[in-house]
């Protein structure tokens, strides 16, 4: 069962959404779309961080129209002819239709407060942000783009882990992205990793934890195995902040917890410290 560790586990997904996605699952405050968008999808009342789409994150971080997307055309294939209750190809088509994305990550060039960087932003809405060949390849290309252009790489992860439907090739995206980060580091470029809820399994066990600086959004789940699996195996009742940002900070696994409204300013400061080109 423990192999579930790098798989998309439904239990790892955010608590079942309440009737309306604009209702805060914590304090039940309700917001209009424009209110949530203006607040970067953070509950004004209790600070709960709602899921945030990749393109919205990019819009909130990158200067004006500085973002230039890369490798947008890459699409997953179905190497195993994988079929569970439905064919993998069908799940892919549906995800693309519902998210408007080709897969669970968007990469490209940008500036933040006029300093150059490369962005690699995951989107949980696309099959639970699971990492298959396309996510691995696009992250890998983001590393190369940052190295070639001499700019830092910034990633924001939100993922249930490796994409089961691509079998062993999904697992191979772990060493693939690890090698890509090592090439980036050999090129002398910094890597700043921001972990959003949830960053689990194979993404946590590969590039997401390899940043020179590790940041996390408040109350984000960052665990290799899902809470349910841990509970099943250990038969313990888990600490109530099990695997959350606060616990990870306490145990020395991350550098800082950064609320979403402060993220752009924090990244901008780090780009200055790492002397990213203006």
């Amino acid at each position, binding site marked *: *069962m*423990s*192999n*579930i*560790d*790098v*798989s*998309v*586990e439904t239990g790892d997904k955010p608590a079942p959404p309440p009737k309306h996605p604009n209702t805060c699952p914590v304090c039940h405050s309700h917001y209009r779309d424009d209110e949530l968008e203006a607040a970067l999808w953070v509950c004004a009342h209790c600070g709960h961080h709602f899921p945030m789409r990749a393109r919205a994150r990019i819009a909130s971080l990158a200067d004006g129209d500085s973002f230039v997307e890369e490798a947008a055309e*890459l*699409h*997953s*294939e179905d*190497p*195993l002819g*994988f*079929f*569970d*209750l439905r064919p993998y190809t069908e799940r892919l088509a549906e995800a693309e239709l519902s998210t408007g994305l080709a897969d669970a990550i968007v990469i490209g060039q940008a500036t933040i407060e006029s300093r150059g960087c490369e962005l690699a932003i995951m989107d949980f809405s696309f099959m639970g942000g699971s990492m298959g*060949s396309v996510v*691995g*390849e696009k992250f890998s290309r983001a590393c190369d783009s940052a190295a070639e252009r001499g700019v830092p790489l910034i990633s924001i992860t939100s993922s249930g882990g*490796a994409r*089961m*439907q*691509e*079998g*062993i*090739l999904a*697992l*191979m*995206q*772990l*060493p*693939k992205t*690890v*090698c890509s*980060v*090592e090439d980036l580091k050999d090129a002398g470029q910094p890597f700043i990793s921001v972990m959003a809820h949830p960053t689990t*399994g*194979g993404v*946590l*066990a590969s590039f*997401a*934890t*390899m940043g020179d600086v590790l940041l996390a959004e408040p109350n984000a789940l*960052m*665990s*290799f*195995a*899902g809470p349910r699996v*841990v509970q099943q195996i*250990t038969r*313990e009742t*888990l*600490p109530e902040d*099990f695997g959350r940002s606060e*616990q990870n900070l306490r*145990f*020395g696994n991350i550098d800082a917890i950064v609320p979403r409204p402060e993220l752009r300013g924090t990244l901008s400061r780090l780009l200055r410290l790492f002397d990213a080109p203006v």
Partner: protein
Amino acid sequence: MPLLGGAKLSGDLQRFEKQLERMQEDATDEEIWTSVQLARHENRPYTLDYVERMLDDWFELHGDRGNADDGAMIAGLGRLDGRTVALVGQQKGRDIKERAERRFGMPNPEGYRKAIRVMELAERHRFPLVSLVDTPGAYPGVAAEQHGQGGTIAESQAVMARLTIPTVAVVIGEGGSGGAVAIALADRVLMQEHAMYAVISPEGCATILWRDAGEAKKAAAAFKPDAVHCLELGVIDGIVPEPPGGAHEDHDAAARLLQEAIVDHLDNLEDLPGDELRRRRRAKFRSLGVFA
């Protein structure tokens, strides 16, 4: 995939042809399930069974320097065919007591840190690294998560991506997900004939997709964790034959075949300069994946 070709050229011709034959006739669902069962067979040789048969002057190294000595991970030095090698590998237990002590071969972060420490020792002294993979997965415990299981598995892969020594990893039983690949980012990755290497256990997959662990056989057929399919997908560089009926039937014969394969690959790798080894190693893993 340059190294897949490279791998095919290594090993003796007989085994090479045998692999090609197997690749012709695609493994059936039955054969896949048989591999899953043999990979987990309770009499299958474990890491230490191979160590005592393959290595002279074995000296086990203990501890992660700072927290624990994890029995689920073995690390040490020994002489293989005359050369000193560093060896790491998960270790399952034989009897109930040992199984509990070794957590059924599921390492904690401390186990991976022990492996990392010995990889770095090997790099310092130019000892080739042999990695034997046999785990259901990394241990999913509360303390394991608190102590950074995910980050440590990434770090172990990162260290292997930095090494300039020859490295050979062999999946000798269960290649269970991140806990397995943590020590398998090697110049050559091999699988024994009846080993399995997968992103998730058949039971785990069945539970999630079919909501029924009983569908494990169907799940295995769907994601194909057997050696032949892994070779076809370019994920591994070669298949190590087992004695008739499987490695559990004859530990000595299995060890001889395993040693022969490892030595073949090390002989090939030792001709290459360290930075070239590292460049090719990274290029191989960066090439893995299928997309349009």
